[in-house]
């Protein structure tokens, strides 16, 4: 029996020993982590690429335009022939108008639907609504921009007197619709991860579902909800196509939402579709605007990261 077993063992183990190509195996084992690491490095190179591109070209820009004029100037008139002005405040004002309107639309609706989905809705409703939200989040922004220009603006013009064809209101509302699914789904995640035992504790004292939602779930999930809003704001600031199509190209440093505006992103698009030659001040200006935009969104992203890390509830 024993000897027979040894014969058998030697058969498969022998085959293994013969066919095993130790050398290639060893090389592959050593090479793969290095190869995969170099793939991971690409993402770091991308960040470096972005930062260096923006810094170098912005530096070129500041050789031609003074940094104080750029930061504190209230007129953005790059195309006025003999004396172009590059004060970024009007572009920032345009961006902030749109972002603010978007937040006013998206935050109440987004959090309210998150509460509904997480606290009230049946499993079946949730399974219908969530994919629809995913679809809404997947609609390309160019489509939203078209919708803003050809539907929302005309409808608003019926309601709001003096609303121009290009304005801040219409793209603001549509950007709000665009970021709404993001707020809803991230807030819903935060609320759903509040343990049921906390809800049951309140319900057993005779609290209504509304009281549980507002006094128990909302405070417990607050950091997640705030982080979702901050991330959504970052998305709104960087949104391009909606504001390019429906916002206009008249940068103004004021508080009007009915007049034509221009956001930072829309300016970059305007220059890119025009024929500003390589090496001109206008060409470099898109990098300085891009750099400003990048800083805005970076701060928002880091803030969201910090909020969700720092105030993460431990259940």
């Amino acid at each position, binding site marked *: 029996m024993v000897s027979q077993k040894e014969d058998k063992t030697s058969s498969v183990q022998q085959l293994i020993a013969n066919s095993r190509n130790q050398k290639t195996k060893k090389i592959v084992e050593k090479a793969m982590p290095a190869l995969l690491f170099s793939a991971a490095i690409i993402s770091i190179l991308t960040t470096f690429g972005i930062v260096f591109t923006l810094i170098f070209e912005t530096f070129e820009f500041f050789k031609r335009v003074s940094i104080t004029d750029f930061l504190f100037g209230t007129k953005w008139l790059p195309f006025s022939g003999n004396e172009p002005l590059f004060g970024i405040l009007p572009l920032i004002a345009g961006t902030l108008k749109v972002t603010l309107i978007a937040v006013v639309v998206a935050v109440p609706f987004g959090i309210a639907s998150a509460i509904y989905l997480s606290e009230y809705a049946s499993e079946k409703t949730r399974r219908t609504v969530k994919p629809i939200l995913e679809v809404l989040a997947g609609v390309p922004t160019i*489509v939203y921009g078209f919708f803003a220009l050809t539907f929302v603006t005309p409808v608003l013009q019926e309601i709001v007197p003096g609303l121009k064809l290009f304005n801040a209101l219409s793209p603001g509302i549509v950007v709000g619709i665009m970021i709404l699914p993001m707020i809803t789904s991230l807030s819903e995640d935060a609320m759903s991860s509040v343990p049921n035992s906390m809800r049951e504790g309140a319900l057993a004292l005779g609290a209504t579902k509304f009281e549980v939602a507002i006094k128990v779930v909302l405070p417990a999930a607050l950091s997640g909800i705030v982080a979702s809003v901050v991330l959504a704001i970052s998305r709104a600031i960087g949104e391009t196509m909606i504001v390019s*199509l429906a916002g206009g190209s008249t940068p103004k440093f004021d508080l009007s939402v009915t007049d034509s505006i221009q956001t930072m992103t829309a300016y970059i698009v305007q220059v890119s579709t025009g024929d500003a030659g390589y090496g001109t001040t206008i060409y470099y200006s898109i990098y300085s605007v891009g750099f400003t935009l990048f800083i805005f969104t970076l701060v928002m992203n880091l803030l969201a990261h910090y909020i969700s890390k720092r105030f993460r509830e431990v259940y």
Partner: protein
Amino acid sequence: MRYMDDTVVMKRMTKRITANKVWKTLFFLATTFALVTLAVLLYRIVTQGIDYLNIDFLTNFASRFADKAGIKAALIGSLWLMAVVAPVSIILGVGTAIYLEEYAKKNKINDFIRMNISNLAGVPSIVFGLLGLTIFVRMMGLGKSILAAGFTMSLLILPVIIVAAQEAIRAVPNEQREASYGMGATKWQTILRVVLPAAIPGILTGSILALSRAIGETAPLVVIGIPVILQFLPNGLLSQFTALPMQIYDWAKRPQEAFQYVAAAGILVLMTVLLLMNSIAIYIRNKFQKRY
């Protein structure tokens, strides 16, 4: 002595219950807002675009005249673009995810990579356009080609693919890896033959969703300076091209009302492509749902 006065409690009770009902209705209406918006949006676009959507529209090149305008160059161009974006972003994304989940030890470099990826996901797409314009179009001299746009788009969706692939790889139970190691398999053999096959449905679903984002993305293409009125099809990776969202943007900007309908028809084509891709992703997700 009792502190709870039953009559007061009962009186407040009715109010509280009514408040609950009112708020529930409000929350529900807020939820329907998104759904109604989507319905209106789709309805508008279908009614605007359907009349222009026909075989000629699909087979014609762009034109100065609305009724002769077609989407052929843009549709084929978008396919070419995907032919670059899909392999580049999936190989890099899945490679990074494998590295982070299977090999990366907890140290500063790897923490930095992780943090960097989550930040990269929040960078506006137009900034990626500036990167593409400087690095790929000018420095590497690729011009306004499919390759330059493809690389730019790949970097843009890379974080999405990495995160999706990481989740899929993490979902493979450790017992599976142990079983493989227990047979004398090496680490790479285990990854290649056990972890990846089990994670592939998740990776594919995530990748398709990321690609569908890339196919509808406009801003980077605008910044790179992709042309819109093209009378020829691309003949290679370094060829000039145009893409669906770019073409739609051009039509939507035009002052003539007729072009609005053309734009709507273009959106219908784009949305159909997206719907197709999403259906495939959902099919894969449902077909290969977890079996552990």
